[in-house]
């Protein structure tokens, strides 16, 4: 191997091409990096200058669109907000683990989004609509703080051992969404919602491993929201079963 120059790094990418129907393999690119270079920049250098067949998702490059969640040196990260200087000069990039690969770093998110839709991810008001906005006190607004900030990058979902072993388990992102709507003062169907998340494939499959929390590139804590849903579900169940608690 030729010696690397001062401003060069080794970018090793897991390649997989469905048309070859062969095994995935690793390919190493030598790319240039300055202190501002991100892993996404490095991938573009590889695509544009070395291999026009490389595939990955991208869009905003500002850590908000959620396209470029990948497994970088063993961590769930957004490629666009991961600086080379943070991860070192030998970088291994893999697609999100435990997800079907479409090509190279592009994974199939169909099931991920199907599970999101299961939790009815929209506010369902049951009171008549006001003429202007709903009045929502700052205190009520705070109840949904952070749970509104998920960018649906699927990093948490890919990191969760309960998802790996139970393909039907809704997973942390969908459950976070379930919390977000159940906790919204404008929503009126919390009982239905608790029924959905309390089902066999719902929140009881969460074993508070906290991989989701560690994986989240937006520093959210899905496990906390799942725990809150568990407490609420337990309380409501007890209330329904034991008359004097009602």
């Amino acid at each position: 191997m030729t010696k690397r120059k001062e401003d060069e790094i080794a970018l090793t990418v897991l390649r997989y091409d469905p048309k070859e129907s062969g095994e995935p393999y690793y390919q190493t690119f030598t790319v240039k990096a300055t202190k501002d270079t991100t892993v996404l920049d490095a991938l573009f250098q590889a695509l544009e200058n070395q291999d026009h067949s490389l595939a990955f998702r991208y869009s905003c490059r500002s850590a908000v669109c959620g396209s470029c969640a990948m497994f970088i040196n063993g961590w769930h990260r957004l490629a666009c907000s991961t600086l080379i200087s943070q991860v070192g000069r030998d970088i291994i990039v893999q697609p999100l683990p435990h997800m079907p690969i479409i090509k190279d770093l592009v994974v199939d998110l169909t099931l991920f989004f199907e599970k999101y839709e299961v939790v009815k991810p929209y506010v369902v008001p049951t009171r008549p609509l006001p003429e202007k906005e709903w009045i929502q006190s700052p205190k009520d607004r705070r109840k949904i703080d952070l749970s509104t900030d998920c960018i649906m990058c699927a990093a948490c979902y890919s990191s969760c051992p309960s998802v790996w072993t139970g393909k039907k388990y809704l997973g942390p992102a969908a459950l976070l969404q379930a919390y977000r709507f159940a906790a919204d003062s404008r929503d009126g169907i919390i009982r239905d919602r608790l029924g959905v998340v309390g089902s066999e494939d719902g929140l009881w499959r969460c074993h508070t491993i906290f991989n989701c929390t560690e994986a989240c590139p937006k520093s959210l804590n899905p496990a906390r929201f799942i725990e809150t849903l568990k407490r609420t579900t337990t309380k409501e169940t007890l209330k329904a079963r034991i008359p004097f608690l009602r």
Partner: protein
Amino acid sequence: MFQHDVIVVGGGLAGLRAAIESSALADTAVISRVHPLRSHTKAAQGGINAALGNAEGGRDDTPDRHAFDTVKGSDFLADQDAVELMTRMAPECIFELEHWGCAFSRTDEGKIAQRPFGGAGFPRTCYGADRTGLYLLQTVYEQSVKRKIKQYQEYFVTSLIIDEGSCRGVIALNIKTGELVPIAAKATILATGGAVWIYSISTNSMINTGSGMTIAYRAGVPLKDMEFIQFHPTGLYPTGLLITEGARGEGGYLINSKGERFMERYAPKAMELAPRDIVSRSIQKEIDEGRAFENAYVHLDLRHLGREKIMTRLPGIRELCLLFAGLDPIDKPIPIRPAAHYTMGGIDCNSNCETPLKGLYAAGECSCISVHGANRLGGNSLLDCVVFGKVAGEKAAKFAKSLPSRTDEQLIESSLEREQKRVEALQKGNGTEEPTALRDEARLILTQKVGMFRSGTDLEAALDQIRRLRRRFSQLRPINLDRVFNLDLIRTFEVEATLELAEIITASALARRESRGAHVRLDFPQRDDENFLKHTLAHYAPTGPRLDYSEVKISRYKPEARKY
């Protein structure tokens, strides 16, 4: 074959809002090159304007005041009927989004919170912290899920299907399979977003290459007012990532290397909250005249706002600074410089979102009605998307319903064949030119010569260089032939659009021999209402754009000098 009453190209705020409206009346589908939740709307931060009067100091605000501010901000190039429609519909549209669950921040009374924004007489910008775009996109996406609106995710539209002067749908590349497919429709709405990724310093997502504009253009629809490119004053140095105007709305200062709040010199009343064209030019002047840090940037100072305010109102900005600049704005000022941000111009349409091509509608940043004229006010683009998304959806659905059901399979077959041949020819490439190298050259030319300050000589030189790049585009190297997720092919389509738009922008700018809003000609420093109070229309011609002009609709607000 895929067939619908209405198809919407683009899954951002305008596209999804249009689809929601349309789906109530007609069979509707959304086609998007990325999953709709990856759209550029999500990167919008500061907020969306509506005269709700919720904020202290905003009680006297009205849709009329909003309209006046918008027209004045536009340097009187906006069409006033469309502006009045937009500002009148603004409150009901915002309440609707709120009823759908949008996570707006709240006043102490529990109403939608509003903050001051540039060029506005009142605190009028409704916000959800500094993640308003994220919350709005979530909301319309959620509603599209609730309504089970059909989506074609990761389909890249390459051309329109045209029959006897009507649009009959689109041809799209299914990115995941590599197949070119026709999607037929009685009405087509383009909501494909803006184009300023074609500038080398830009706040935009990398998918904002304007390819949606060029498919309309090639089908004979003019592109209007393309010379008006907005430069956002505060792009993070050096990447250009967006630092919201909300940072100044909340009280942030702009400071040069001498420690001066230099906006005093340029807009003594409005200061940092002058409209974007004025603030951006002021920053650039400070840089050009040697009062910048490292000759490259000035500071946006938020430190005096305090930790609490930054953490609650601007948490996303703090996160961006920590991730991308390695600094905490609670302790340190943010290095910023202007960055290309928005295309005021776009696909020519009227306030019903109808383009001159029957059956084709446009909404959002790809469109030009025009409600933004020569300079858009912050907080008006999300509003444009919501209001005119709704209008486009309704009009397109009604139009589609008025047509008899009819599929001309032969037409669709022949359109598909023609497009397949075009793509094959593009991929075959018997030259050596590297498409992304051509793109990088075009981006640099635009940034250096078609930026905030322009001159006849620069524009002529730029036009010449861009035309040479376009010629080189016909000598591309062979393009990758993979079927699945072929980025090389998609990016080649984008480069084609980039070069085409670069030529249109430059030619339009060269012909406009005046200074108005975001378009400043050093050789024609004054606004010239007598000769140029009119919209530029660029029509497709094989040898380069043919320009003509159309009238500006002026009703209540007569052009006056623009002082802040």
